[in-house]
């Protein structure tokens, strides 16, 4: 069955209203925790058992992350939700905000309870006006109904949340850049350590989680860790939202069990549009290495399986490349993106992303030199491991991936000054 967790209101008429959310059991998990006084440690244990891993891209175990917080120490702490959703291919958090905002609020409140925070911020990318309005309205509804505020459900727990709108910068999805941005600064990632659990927003202990991660929490509490775990497989718990894009009959967001074969997901999307053949798949957002289509047909959609195939589940953005796509054009576009979005703090990333983009432009437009292919590989390799944040890696991995399986298309561009496939080949 699909749509059982983050999308559980999707079948309803106006899925985003408080009324809709209450009709599927909304805010009952928070109520149960607070009225039965379930210790935070127990909830954190449940989240660990559920094998929920961060849905923002890195896949870090959520329960473990929460356990790093000094929850018993005095003073302000924060829970921050990352709705910056900028990784090309990814469009799932937008639909959680649009169609099930209350579940995210409940998830933030439960997270706040677990880490000892009474305040949450949801960082929503600036272009997401409709999702922001839905979320903000939901905050209002929740406050009026007493699901946010002081002494929730008669307990000692106070919690309120606010939204913060971004201004158009992919790098603000990186968690420490995001904190800088909330503080009203340029979104430049911080050097780590210290980690946010010790020194986060305004210098206070902070946990940052992705929208989908937090929106999954109320259902884990309601149905139990085991239920969630069994929807996936060991170490890869739960259901997952996949944003599928490309020339498919029914592209869209699909919430399915972790471990579902890719071939089944493709079927849910109605298969390829008439006249298009599957060529390759970028399985986890633009930063994840591309996998040839045939190989992908044997992969299941979970962290471990996609990693074994040489890529990453990342944000769950499944970008379908068809037989009309020239891999040189595709990588040139992505390289341009990373150059544009590098914040410029680290020389290897700033210069390296510029260089990659420049070389790719050259090859794409027929000025490529034979040595360029090896040069690309080297420049990409030289960025990795030498930067403050993971954008450097994010820019390098696609280069390595495209060169590994599609080197012939790069060679063809250099030899014939045009594309090997697609409209550009004529």
């Amino acid at each position, binding site marked *: 069955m699909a749509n059982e967790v983050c999308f559980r209101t999707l079948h309803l008429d106006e899925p985003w209203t408080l009324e809709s959310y209450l009709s599927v059991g909304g805010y009952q998990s928070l109520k149960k925790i607070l009225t039965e006084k379930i210790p935070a440690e127990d909830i954190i244990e449940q989240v660990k058992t559920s094998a929920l891993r961060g849905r923002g891209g890195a896949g870090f175990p959520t329960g473990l992350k929460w356990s790093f917080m000094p929850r018993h120490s005095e003073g302000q702490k924060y829970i921050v939700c990352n709705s910056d959703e900028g990784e090309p291919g990814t469009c799932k958090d937008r639909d959680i905000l649009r169609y099930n905002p209350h579940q995210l609020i409940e998830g933030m409140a439960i997270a706040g309870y677990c880490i000892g925070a009474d305040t949450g911020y949801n960082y929503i990318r600036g272009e997401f006006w409709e999702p922001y309005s839905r979320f903000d309205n939901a905050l209002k509804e929740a406050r009026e109904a007493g699901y946010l505020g002081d002494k929730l459900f008669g307990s000692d727990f106070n919690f309120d949340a606010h939204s913060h709108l971004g*201004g158009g910068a992919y790098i603000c999805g990186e968690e420490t850049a995001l904190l800088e941005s909330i503080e009203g600064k*340029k979104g430049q990632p911080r050097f780590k350590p210290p980690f946010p659990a010790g020194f986060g927003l305004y210098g206070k202990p902070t946990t940052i989680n992705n929208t989908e991660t937090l929106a999954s929490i109320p259902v884990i509490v309601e149905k139990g860790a085991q239920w969630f775990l069994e929807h996936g497989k060991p170490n890869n718990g739960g259901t997952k939202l996949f944003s599928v*894009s*490309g020339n498919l009959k029914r*592209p869209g967001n699909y919430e399915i069990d972790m471990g579902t074969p890719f071939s089944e997901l493709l079927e849910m999307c109605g298969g390829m549009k008439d006249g298009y053949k599957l060529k390759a798949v970028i399985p986890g957002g633009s930063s994840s290495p591309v996998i040839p289509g045939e190989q992908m047909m044997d992969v299941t959609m979970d962290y471990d399986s996609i990693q074994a195939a040489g890529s990453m589940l990342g944000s769950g953005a499944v970008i379908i490349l068809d037989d009309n796509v020239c891999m040189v054009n*595709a990588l040139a576009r992505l390289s341009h993106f990373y150059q544009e979005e590098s914040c410029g703090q680290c020389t290897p990333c700033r210069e390296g992303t510029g260089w990659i983009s420049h070389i790719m432009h050259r090859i794409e437009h027929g000025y490529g030199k034979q040595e360029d292919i090896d040069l690309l590989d080297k420049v990409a390799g030289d960025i990795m491991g030498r930067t403050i944040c993971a954008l450097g890696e994010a820019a390098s991995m696609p280069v390595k991936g495209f060169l590994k399986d599609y080197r012939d298309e790069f060679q063809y561009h250099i030899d014939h000054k045009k594309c090997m496939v697609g409209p550009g080949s004529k």
Partner: protein
Amino acid sequence: MPQANNELINTASREDIDQWVAKYPADKKQSAVMAALRIVQDQNGCWLTTELMDAVADYLDMDKIHVYEVATFYSMYEHKPLGKHKICVCTNISCMVCGSGEIVAHLEDKLDIKMGETTEDNRFTLKEVECLGACSGAPMMQIGENYYENLDAEKIDTILDGLK
């Protein structure tokens, strides 16, 4: 240099900014700078002037330089006048695969301008943007607060004709 005059920010904008200021701790007014810049940009039509940025600095007790840094770091702040409707076209990977090239060509052709330019009558500006997080609706564009997805030439004509 004359002191920035925060009278430049009108009452409605100030009320709006104050609501954002209230979300953050009392001594962290600077957190509202992104919202404040967006609000005064909207008040001014579609772009920021130095005077407006200075007024924001004044209003939030910030150094001007820190306001300029923010205003130039994020792509949604504009520093020169644009057409009445800013058309942001995504050309990133999913949109590219689904034909954003043809969308761009159609828009450039129809409006008789290139990406980054404004029509002579100041009605439209075309802007190329990175992924806007609506990839399964590719190809897509944003005009004002609205997203338009699954575009084709015909749909674009209808959308543009419907704009005031």
